[in-house]
């Protein structure tokens, strides 16, 4: 370490190079985002001559019109309903299945677990046409559940794996003692396993929520009614309507990604840990 300290002269070219490199990448990431945010404050005419800079004249009207429109809130509401359904149902079904796989030995348990993990191998898109027909035949087309249920089904594989690994680490003596004392498996699950597993439940919930909140293909295929559209569909419709009025589209984009960014800034540690843990341990 002392070696590193002494070589840290004021004009170390390596440090300068590093700072330059990081700065360039930061600009690469930030410029499109800032241009979007600021673009929403410009008039169309100004956007054309000044897409990069600070607005000379702040057009609050662009943002205000969207914020006071029923449409914006309806899109967010639909997204929130679908994502909440997906998260709730995933947590309930996946934790129950994971508990069974973690604590109960039965004939065929490892085969069933492998069966579930098949879901990790291919994307929902491969079977989206038969999925559409299935959802239609079940009468769920154009409903929130028609979107949420397939999302739950496709998130189960990863969720069960993550939860089972965590549940298995809960000391077996705890379960044994509880059972000897007459506590049932179900009560143990409800009063011991779940409260002890809050971190992993939060991780699984985060992954499912982000995936569902941002999803486009499934709602696109399953929903026909504008009034049910989640925001990724709604914003594409909006863009179609205002095709080259970029100042309005940019304001709309900014307002729809705002909830994600606020959530990210508030819970960045959990979100980063959740998304990378999900990836690594899957």
């Amino acid at each position, binding site marked *: 370490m002392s070696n590193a300290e002494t070589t840290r002269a004021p004009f170390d070219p390596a440090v300068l190079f590093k700072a330059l490199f990081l700065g360039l990448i930061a600009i690469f990431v930030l410029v499109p985002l800032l241009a*979007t945010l600021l673009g929403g404050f410009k008039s169309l005419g100004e956007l054309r001559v000044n897409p990069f800079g600070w607005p000379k004249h702040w057009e609050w009207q662009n943002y205000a019109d969207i914020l006071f429109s029923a449409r914006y809130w309806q899109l967010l509401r639909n997204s929130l309903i679908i994502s909440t359904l997906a998260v709730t149902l995933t947590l309930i079904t996946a934790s129950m299945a994971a508990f069974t796989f973690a604590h109960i030995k039965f004939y065929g348990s490892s085969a069933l677990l492998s069966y579930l993990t098949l879901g990790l191998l*291919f994307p929902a898109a491969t079977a989206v046409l038969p999925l559409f027909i299935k959802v239609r035949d079940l009468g769920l087309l154009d409903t929130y559940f028609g979107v949420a249920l397939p999302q739950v089904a496709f998130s189960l594989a990863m969720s069960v794996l993550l939860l089972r690994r965590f549940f298995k680490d809960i000391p077996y003596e705890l379960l044994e003692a509880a*059972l000897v004392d*007459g506590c049932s498996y*179900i009560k143990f699950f409800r009063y011991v396993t779940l409260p002890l597993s809050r971190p992993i439940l939060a991780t699984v919930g985060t992954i499912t929520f982000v995936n569902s*909140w941002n999803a486009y293909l499934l709602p696109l295929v399953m929903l026909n009614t504008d009034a049910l559209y989640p925001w990724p569909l709604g914003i594409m419709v909006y863009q179609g309507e205002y095709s080259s009025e970029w100042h309005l589209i940019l304001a709309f984009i900014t307002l729809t990604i705002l909830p994600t960014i606020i959530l990210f800034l508030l819970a960045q540690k959990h979100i980063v840990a959740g998304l*990378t843990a999900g990836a690594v341990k899957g």
Partner: protein
Amino acid sequence: MARHTASSPAMGTTQTSFASLAVRGPSWDGRFTVLILFLPPALLLFTLFVVLPIGEAAWYSAFNWNGFGKPTNWIGFDNYRFVLETRAFWLALRNNGLIIAVSLAIQLPLALTLALMLAEKFRGAVALRMLFFMPYILAEIATGLIFSFVYDGDYGLVASIWRSFGAEPPHLLASTDTSMMAVLIVIVWKYFGFHMMLFIAALQSLDKSLIEAARIDGATRAQTLRHVVIPLLYPTIRLSVFFAIIGSLQLFDLVMPLTRGGPADSSNTMVSFLYNNGISRMRVGYGSAIGVILFVICVTFAFTYKRWFMRDE
């Protein structure tokens, strides 16, 4: 037991019930109840919405069917032949190959370099990590729309740079020569932060004593990096490559707002090809055949890759 609430977990349950008379071991009854109550919801959902549709895709792919009524017009493997004879299919496959190539040649080295820089503690390191990770959590639809503005030939950022040099601004997304390149840049923008985070997580859990040992033995920084740190990261590199490839095979949302796969199919991925040719026209048989081909590619790849490169994990 009713007095146990969520806020009094483990300890309460085990200690209070010594008084309980119902002392019995882990009975088969209890386990059976759990089995029939806890497993079916997940298995049912998974079977209904994941496994059956894949099986049905294989079945439907043998029909010429528009999705209404029952499939009756059996045409055998013709749908597969039609897919393989479509030029757009091979373009889509080539584009998926390009995405993988860019992920390996540009995104991965970039992510690794940034991770090595940002895994050290210095002022601003955490903020930069978060900034670089942020594109990953943005919806692909929003990202695609943002970049369709960036690339816009009239109002966009690229156009304004071109104009400041006095040149006629290009319409990058509207030309078959540049559309895929433009999409590839967005892919790097959106995903490098995720891979960087994977590497940072790995670097932080490395055994520091190995690195110190190498330094004490007189290895330079570059030598330590080359012969100690990078080899220790091989498992993570293999994982990152795996995600890059699987991710490229699923890519769809990002392409739609940018180009919809066009112009002239020049920027289709496998899934956007499936959407444009199967789903949006309700050609169930043809679309299912594409789905089955994609499924076979994904599964073959996943198994082969796991067997060859990730045997120990």
